[in-house]
């Protein structure tokens, strides 16, 4: 990962969402992207130029654009039509974003498009967050990494986040993934937990 004067940056065509430019590089703001927050808090996850990524919950393409700067190709799945309109504009200026308008909970609908990937990044805030990730494991190659941004508030607001975390952890492990690391995203995102998992 590239850091300039303590700022995480990525190299690519700028002006995607009015991001700051530092010495010709795009500043990747941890307040606007959970993945950037994860890097600020320290993680062993690395993005490389030969990485293929499946990005679930691509939204407006803010984080997607940064991930695409670092990697070979990003398959970006988003279900909502309005963010998709923005995502198409972002993907239009980059050769390595493949936009997919589909529900991440129905991987069968985009199966013909997506190849085996090195990294699955799951940022869909849904009550079925964990099972959505597990449903997409078929795209992850052996030894590949999965990142889950868990938002306990969208699973069940009434329960304490710790319970939800624990339950999610069991579900992930039963789904066949090994958990490498857990990172709380506070202070950037209170009550969010990033799971770093590996498929063995």
């Amino acid at each position, binding site marked *: 990962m590239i850091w300039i004067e303590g700022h995480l940056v990525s190299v690519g065509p700028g002006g995607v969402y009015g991001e700051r430019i530092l010495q010709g590089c795009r500043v990747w703001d941890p307040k606007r992207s959970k993945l950037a927050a994860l890097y600020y808090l320290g993680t062993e996850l690395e993005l490389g130029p030969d990485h293929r990524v499946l990005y679930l919950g691509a939204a407006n393409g803010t984080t997607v654009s940064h991930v695409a700067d670092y990697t070979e190709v990003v398959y970006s799945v988003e279900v909502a*039509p309005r963010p998709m309109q923005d995502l198409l504009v972002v993907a239009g200026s980059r050769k390595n974003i493949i936009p*997919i308008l589909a529900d991440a909970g129905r991987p*069968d609908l*985009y*199966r*013909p*498009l997506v*190849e085996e990937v090195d990294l699955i990044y799951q940022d869909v805030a849904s009550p079925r967050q964990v099972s959505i990730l597990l449903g997409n494991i078929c795209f992850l190659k052996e030894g590949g990494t999965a990142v889950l941004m868990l938002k306990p508030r969208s699973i069940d607001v009434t329960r304490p986040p710790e319970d939800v975390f624990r339950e999610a952890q069991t579900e992930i492990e039963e789904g066949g993934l090994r958990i490498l690391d857990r990172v709380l995203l506070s202070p950037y995102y209170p009550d969010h937990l990033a799971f770093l998992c590996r498929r063995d």
Partner: protein
Amino acid sequence: MESYWFGDVEGRACEPAPGDPGLLAERIELLAGSGDACIPDWRIAVRCGALRDRAEYLERLRDAAFILAEKNLGRILQADHSGLIQMVRMLDQLDEVINLLTERSVEWHRATHPGFSRKRTLPADRTLIALIRQDADETLTGLLDEIERLRGQRSLLMKQVSRRAEEVLPNCSALAGGLVAARLAAEAGGIRELAVMPAASIQVLGAKTALFSHLSTGTPPPKHGIVYQHGRVHGARRENRGRVARTLSAKLAIAARIDYYRKCADTEFLLKAADAVRRAGRRE
């Protein structure tokens, strides 16, 4: 045989798919629908000669994915008629703006004309704005012209909303009028959302404040929301109004379902429904 987006592969032999992105998009859709598609691998595509290299693989796939996404986007936006919803919201906001500007103009006029009072009754053929315009200065006259123009746009838009609603929601519009039907759909959040809504919810659509104040503090429940705008509801006697609103919403719930799923007017149902609403208003 294994089917991929770039072609059909049988052992070492390959039948490459046509290279046109539009045709590829259609192929991908078919494959996705069939449910037995394989996860693609670019090396297979190159090995069997469908594509030259990795770069070509990604380029073709990206172009096809773009077309597919745009196509699906168009389909979704059309299916939920979000255009109609936006028109209704624009209409409501136009009302707000026109009222605000009119109100401000009157205040301004009052400040400069000590003899002016709103209490003075207006001649039947004069609007308040026309009255102020008589002795307004140049700037205010210009603004009043703009307000008049907005009013003109508003009535154009209103007619358009009703026309679109009669196309999209033929049954609801026949029962409640195009404008009320469109407003209900906008408040529900969409045509589909209206179609899956229970009648009791339709009855209080647009009476959010009253409904939640009822739920939290136990004030009397609202009898009607947007359906109040229907002549049979606000024209009914006070003690009958709740019943008329209830009957009308029950019929509207059925009408919305016919509109969404069958997409055509059902005259027999409409006659019966209109009759039921009429009877609800007459009973003592």
